């Protein structure tokens, strides 16, 4: 297929890639992500980490067709099938999971953290399985691949779904080097440096550096390499976020004289590895509010940000040729 790709004046093949990240379980955002291949006319789609949702919303069956649900701080009474379907769709758009329970089942869950954890894993795995099937259905008849890796919020036992479910179009990249569009060796890592939330896949900077060094093994020439690392490099403006008090649960913004303080939250290990190997492109995410693009040496570093809760797919379209970023465009679809 490469022979038929568009070539520029110098005879290089150009590839168009779409990158998005941090969709946190949002059904609507994921469906948009899949459609980006056709909509933006790109060759492949790449997803950074943090695929799993964060909240499990019980829909409590009260009586007959009456339900109760607490969403975004408000408890709502649901009456009838249409309203029930609408609230489920809203929950899924927000990236949350839902489970319909009786009052006594709710109380049982509230008293048993293990049961909640198991339910999270089960629902997350089911949603990803459904997404893989949907990807194969939507991308059928095309050469488009969905390259995917996890993030620090994703539980390892859930990410195994990507290896367990056979797919024509989904490429699980976690912890390995894959060739994107046959030309761009891509190293992938979803681990992060420590966060105030004690997430499933965070390690100290020294350990992260070891993981990253391992992740790039197998790439001999970094001229056209892509690093799909979940965390942005430290102090690069793509990692600015409110400074948080780690001692509170949940962590709270630190306010001094009425002003919320901000600080870089990226990884020194990621920065070190990027500066050492100088890849063509570094794809990051993690800090949703720090959308942007910077260069570190020859490396173009992108964080497209995330607005998964609004059902918006934030991303970036890249036009690449070996050794060069020809163009890029931030999108908000």
């Amino acid at each position, binding site marked *: 297929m490469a022979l038929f790709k568009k070539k520029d004046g110098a005879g290089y093949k150009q590839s168009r890639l779409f990158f998005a990240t941090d969709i946190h379980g949002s059904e609507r955002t994921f469906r948009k992500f899949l459609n980006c291949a056709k909509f933006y006319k790109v060759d492949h789609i790449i997803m950074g980490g943090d695929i799993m949702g964060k909240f499990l919303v019980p829909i409590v069956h009260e009586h007959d067709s009456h339900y109760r649900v607490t969403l*975004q701080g408000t408890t709502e009474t649901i009456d009838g099938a249409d309203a029930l379907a609408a609230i489920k769709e809203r929950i899924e758009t927000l990236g949350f999971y839902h489970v319909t329970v009786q009052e006594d089942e709710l109380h049982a869950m509230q008293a048993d953290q293990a049961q909640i954890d198991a339910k999270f894993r089960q629902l997350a795995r089911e949603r990803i399985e459904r997404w893989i099937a949907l990807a194969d259905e939507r991308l059928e008849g095309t050469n488009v691949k969905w390259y995917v890796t996890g993030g620090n919020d994703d539980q390892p036992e859930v990410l195994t779904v990507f290896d367990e479910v056979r797919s024509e179009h989904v490429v699980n990249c976690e912890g390995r080097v894959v060739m994107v569009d046959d030309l761009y060796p891509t190293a992938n890592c979803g681990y992060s440096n420590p966060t105030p939330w004690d997430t499933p896949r965070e390690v100290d900077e020294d350990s992260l550096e070891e993981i990253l060094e391992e992740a790039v093994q197998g790439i001999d020439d970094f001229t056209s390499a892509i690093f799909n690392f979940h965390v942005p490099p430290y102090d690069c403006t793509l990692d600015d976020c409110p400074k948080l008090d780690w001692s509170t649960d949940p962590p709270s913004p630190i306010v001094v004289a009425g002003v*919320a303080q*901000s600080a870089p939250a990226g990884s020194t290990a990621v920065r070190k590895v990027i500066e050492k190997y100088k890849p063509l492109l570094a794809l990051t995410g993690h800090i949703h509010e720090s959308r942007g693009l910077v260069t570190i040496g020859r490396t173009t570093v992108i964080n497209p940000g995330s607005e998964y809760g609004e059902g918006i797919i934030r991303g970036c379209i890249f036009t690449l040729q070996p050794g060069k970023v*020809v163009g890029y*465009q931030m999108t908000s679809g």
Partner: protein
Amino acid sequence: MEATAAKPEVFSRKASGLSRVMSPWSAFIYNFLTMGVIFPWTFVWAPEAFPGVAVWMACLFATLLELPIALAYVWMATAMPRSGGDYVFQSRVLGGAIGFPIVMSGFVIWILQWVALAGWLFANLGLAPLFLGLGVHYNSTGLINAGVWAEGHQGVVVTSIIGAALMAILLVTGFKNYVRLQYFMFAGTGILVVIMLAQFLRTSPAQFAVAINHFNGIVDKNPAYYTWLQHDVSSTGFKLFPKFALGATLLAAPIAWTSTQWATYSVEQGGEIKGARVFKNQMFIIVGSLIAVGVVLALIAWTEQRAVGTGFFNAASASYYGAISASGTGIGKVYPFPGMFAIIISPNPIITVLAAVSFMLASLQITCNCYIGMTRVMVGMSLDRTLPAWFSKVNSRYRTPVNAHLVYFLLGVCAIVGYSYVTKWYTITLGVTFACGYVFVLSCLAAALLPYRAKALYEASPGAKYTLAGIPLVTILGLIGFVAGGAAVVAFLVKPAYGLTGTSPGLTYAIVGGIFVFSVVIYWIGRYYQKGKGIDISYAFLEVPPE
């Protein structure tokens, strides 16, 4: 669905979160200050433009005029809580080919006029009253001369450029610096409002006459100024005591809209407001600040007119705004602004300094607003690739878009110099109200069309559940806002009393039209340039279908 009290019935797992830095209260303050409650436009302009007007009532009508617009913005702000506000709303709903030129011309270019105006306000409402007030108190010719200099072209230009540069540096070195200063600005505004209301409420027209005669006796050497000014104006045939006219009062509402139209400005930084997607937060921020400012404006107008007397109130407007003067002498060196009057009533150093510093802080706030809002819009345009990527480069040391600030400062300097030294420039002062007005009105249209042009976005928004007879409420409010605001915008274009087309309509139309056409051209040049790099700008404005 029926909403009831919140109960903790949601399970969460260990996952990273997102925090926004600006609280709804802080955003409320931001809007309140942006509306410039202490600025004098309405009080010095409306009585001459529409004889028979009840200015306090016009302020309330302006609040009503803005209300549907503000409500439509609440829906939009909760549906698209992103920085870039109006640009995002319009480009996503109406398309980039409409959104870009509207926001680029109406906001980015025309708001440069506000940079100049803010400097003018700093000099005329802050610095000059400070020097004049202290000069009168201490009987110092040097201070009085300094006050007169501050009101002159040179004083205005010098202080404006210094103020614009200082605010640019403040914002470039970090948004948090501004947020800290904002509390002082809010406190200053509060103090000034209290000073003005207290001064006006405890003063009768007779007492005011004595005070202003004393003040002008020193500054303008006219110890009978109070009666002289009224006679100077009434001798031309101008009626100082016209009968109340509801029509004139309604027609004056667009003048007060100059202030209230800014109730929605917080949407430009929607991505930085905590809980921006929560309906009641946006109601508090946008509608709450609108009502608060509307009431305060009306109170200032009512108490001022009561204190200085209707005859003098109208004469001051006619002499200052309409340049109506039988003798040709005009208003003199003491400008008839409420803050100035508050100082004149009792020109002691404490009140003078408090009032002047508060005005200066409020003027600097306007300068900050210009930078904050417009640099974010420019960054948004740059990320969409409709402006070069250079504009959105974030400085690694300060974490702010330094390039965008630098460009806006330099263009602001041009506007500052032009405003003082290019005679015709002054005549299009109110072009900015008209231009920003059409941005707000088009955003109302975008709100009306939101459920149909961005269906998925609308359905995911908290406002989607509100309908009236099956019609989305945002559509109804957006259409009312579009018609009401549209009428005000058209009035500015066709009615000379609003000042925009008063002296040279041909020039005004050429400038207004030229700026819009220039913005259209920029958009299409950018679009074709980016196409050559494999970038289709239209992608930035389109919602990807989920199915």
